[in-house]
């Protein structure tokens, strides 16, 4: 089933590269929502639609330069870049680094729980935990956030994320870990006990 779907997808990609506008529109419809949910968590709801629409239009215009094997990774790359550009343009000082300086990863980075709170064993389904996660994500540096969302929400492999964000795999690994750690710390600070592995 999946093989057939990816074959059909490959056919659409080929047609689109040859200028078939309808094939491209079909591909765009398939990625529209995933792109949007990434954009929302990157730039917020106000600008997300613009970012996605710009990205899809840019993708159509530069289809001839698409060479890789994964159309999805390619289009996510365009969208992620647009989202990061949008964030940079919002800042008054674009020379601020988007990544914090490298730090020793030792026990100090692991926040300890605050005073023992109520048992929240089923937090996975609890809306409160999700709110904490949402808030924590917005405090992450943009590039950590992008890597974490691409991994945990979109399910891209580290290699694909490396292509999408144009960095080494080691950097991807570090960003994902730091991002997850920061979210974990935020949860623990609110009394989260952590779900069973």
């Amino acid at each position, binding site marked *: 089933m999946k093989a057939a779907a990816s074959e059909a997808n490959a056919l659409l990609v080929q047609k689109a590269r040859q200028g078939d506008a309808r094939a491209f529109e079909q591909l765009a419809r398939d990625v529209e929502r995933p792109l949007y949910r990434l954009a929302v968590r990157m730039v917020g709801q106000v600008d997300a639609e613009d970012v996605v629409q710009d990205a899809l239009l840019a993708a159509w215009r530069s289809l001839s330069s698409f060479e890789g094997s994964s159309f999805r990774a390619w289009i996510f790359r365009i969208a992620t870049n647009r989202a990061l550009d949008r964030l940079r343009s919002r800042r008054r000082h674009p020379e601020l680094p988007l990544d914090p300086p490298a730090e020793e990863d030792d026990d100090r*980075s692991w926040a300890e729980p605050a005073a023992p709170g109520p048992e929240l064993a089923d937090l996975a389904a609890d809306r409160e935990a999700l709110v904490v996660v949402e808030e924590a994500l917005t405090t992450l540096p943009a590039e950590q956030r992008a890597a974490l969302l691409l991994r945990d929400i979109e399910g891209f492999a580290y290699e694909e994320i490396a292509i999408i964000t144009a960095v080494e795999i080691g950097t991807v690994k570090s960003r994902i870990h730091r991002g997850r750690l920061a979210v974990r710390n935020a949860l623990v600070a609110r009394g989260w006990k952590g779900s069973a592995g």
Partner: protein
Amino acid sequence: MHPFAELSAYIDDALDPTAKAAVETHLHDCAVCRTRLGELRGTARLIAALPAAVPSRSLVPRVSVPLWLAPIRTLATLASAAALFLFVASAALSGLRFSTGAAPAAAPAPIAPNAGAPATSVGAADRGTGLSASASPAAGFAVNPSASPVPEAQRSTQTDATKTVTGTAAPPAAREDAATTGPAARTLSVPERPQLGPSPWVWLVLAVGFGALALVLQRRLRAA
């Protein structure tokens, strides 16, 4: 040494076999790391469980055009051209008057059969020749061909007053008829002429309408 930095990659199955084995060995003996691993897994699951926002509208750019666009554009262009042609033909056939003074000019004609008639017929000829120069012979004026020798004579005295005199057998003939039958002259100026369907203006409106449609569709095609 706890391999904290590897724990996330371990969860994501992104470690090479050697590193993976090393982590597993460590986890076997380290409760702290097992706890941390569980917390990281739980965090990843929570992130995955975030509600997915949906866009309020379609974000797919319109890069394709509907299949019917080009053919309809072509048809509209052709229809516009056809309507324009029909307008011109219809207008020519019905001897389109561009001013409204034609009817009253023909009415006083029977009153002044000699002196007045040439003057008014000049006026009529003046207005009528703009369009009827070539078509007047066939204008269905119910012109009697026997009146031709008279127009010849009249024409020579009225060249300065008329714009175009070639083939204007009809207006002098109308004067002739006006001099003899008054009511006939009046009815002659009223369009009892054969027309091509509805009034010529209808064709012009259609031509403009189709032309505008073709223009709009062409723009849409270009924009794609």
